[in-house]
């Protein structure tokens, strides 16, 4: 995988935290990407394609998450994910 790696921090603004439905949105988005995306909360690290990992972050309202995309199209991928958080997982 190409070395390009970009990262950005987002804040969870979902009232119930990053619960099952938003996690599933992230997985679906992740499955469509050509690059690797990892989401970190403190010492916890999750693969965006793994719903159990994401649920395991137990990210609550106000938590800060570090998104890191590595590989082809990492910039674009990161932008899409950030957009999802900024729209607060709206449609």
């Amino acid at each position, binding site marked *: 995988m190409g070395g390009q790696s970009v990262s950005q921090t987002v804040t969870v603004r979902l009232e119930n935290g990053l619960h099952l439905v938003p996690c599933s949105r992230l997985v679906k988005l992740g499955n469509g990407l050509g690059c690797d995306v990892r989401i970190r909360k403190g010492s916890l690290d999750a693969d965006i*394609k793994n719903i159990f990992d994401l649920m395991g972050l*137990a990210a609550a309202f106000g938590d800060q998450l570090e998104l890191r995309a590595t590989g082809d199209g990492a910039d674009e991928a990161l932008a899409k994910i950030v957009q999802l958080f900024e729209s607060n997982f709206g449609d």
Partner: protein
Amino acid sequence: MLVKRGIAVSPGVAIGPALLFGAENFKLSRHYTSKSAIETEIGRFHAALNAVCTDIEENQRVATERLGKEYGAIFGAHVLMARSPELVSEVERLIREETNTPERACEIVLNKYAKLFQELGSRYHAERAQDIYDLKNRLLRQLLGKQRQEMTDLTEPVLILAHNLTPSETANLKREFVLGFVTEVGGPTSHTAILAGALELPAVVGVGEFLSEVTSGDLIIIDGDRGEVIINPIESVIAERRAAQQKNESNYAALEIERTAEPITADGERIQLLGNIEFPTETGHCLERGADGIGLYRTEFLYLGVEQEPSEEDHYQAYCRVIEDLGGREVVIRTLDLGADKVPSVGGLPAESTNPALGLRSIRLSLQHREGFKTQLRAILRAAAKAPPGSVKIMFPLISSLNEFRQAKMVVRDVMDDLDEAGESFPREVPLGMMVEVPSAAILADQFAAEVDFFSIGTNDLIQYTLAVDRGDPAVSSLYRTGDPAILRLIRMVVAAADQPNRKIPVTVCGQMSSDPKFLPLLIGLGIRRISVTPHSIPELKAVIRRLTIPKAKDIATHAEWLGLSRGIDNYLQGEVSKICPQLVR
């Protein structure tokens, strides 16, 4: 290799792959599969997973439609969890590397995830853990349920190993692919036993818990002569049992020579030897072994494995087929003998009873559910028009009082009036008889004798009711004694009552007792001259009859009564019959 013992209920030896039918509950019956079954098991897991996901997606569609997209999305997330590559690959790994069954693998993996969520501590995550448990249960239900469904779409010959088989399951199975049966529960009068006998397949029941030690696909030997089940037998044992199987067959073939011989005792007494059947196709099994007719046609199978009660036409077609095949020989058609234990809920019949054996069943059910009873009687009477007069007889089961018999008789008269009005042809004089299987009927046999045309002693229920023992219950099954002096006395009472100076009524014995050669001299000694048996046992019974004399039979009966409660009675009878007919297989 593992040998399990149970009750031998249908003779013969079968060798082949096992097909397991687990218990209904989620207690996982087995944890490990065999190496050769790994790919099959992985396929089974994927089939279950797909079915579960299809179910959840359907929920998603309904939820989206009724409650909105956000609710539907919850189910979408569940599908995502179910299909997550981590979950799938971990289950696959456990099956492949640890030879876990899919059931066990799903349990391990999903429990792990659920526990992980629980440990996150929040109420929200605790609830998600519940979602995962729910997903696990759905998968298990599919995996266990799928196995049970396979019975209807068997594609290769198998031995059926089950906790228990319901009548509807057995009614629907593809008989050409079933080589034999083993069940954890059940006794000689259990449904599986009767069915195996009817299909002439080896069967062992009441083995106790053993399914956890077997995997579908394992090689199994069912020895229906010795009551043994051998799991993954070693080569020498396979060879030994195959030899036994062949010897059985050749012994049986030797007895088959008796087929054309008449069942006449050595001193010239003609014994009527009839067959018990459940399916019209069995008529042939009886006739090719030289039966005098059908002494017990159990009509319950018309009611099983169907969505609704059989129509008059369903009944009529079945009866016509039997009558046609019999070519003028007699047939005793027993009216519905369904109880709470045999798929009750068909056609709105009342279900569930706290004490099924003593509840609403058989003739009691027919008398309360008049329309269904009349439908069956109409069909019998119409079919009887195609047979020689008197050759089709109607028998009512579980008669416990004179009043009950009279009521049943009245319903027959009503049906005749209806048929008259409709201009249908039917015989006016149809012999009407009863099963003697409730002690009250045996005790008052002299009073019944004045009103019935024939008796048929159903030993299975008569023993159960007289001794108050459920033979299917392993805790008390040793108390079920076929040769109990109380049973012998009741049989004598019925024989005596039927032998009135002015009126002699035929008495038949049907049930497991009459099919067992060792009881035959005893029954003849007690005065029985008609027996109705599983078709398979006709040749060997005929062989015994032809070597027996009436005085000898009477001696045996007297001695058996004298033995009384002694446990030696079975051995004594077995010894006697072996002396009379040494070439008997059993």
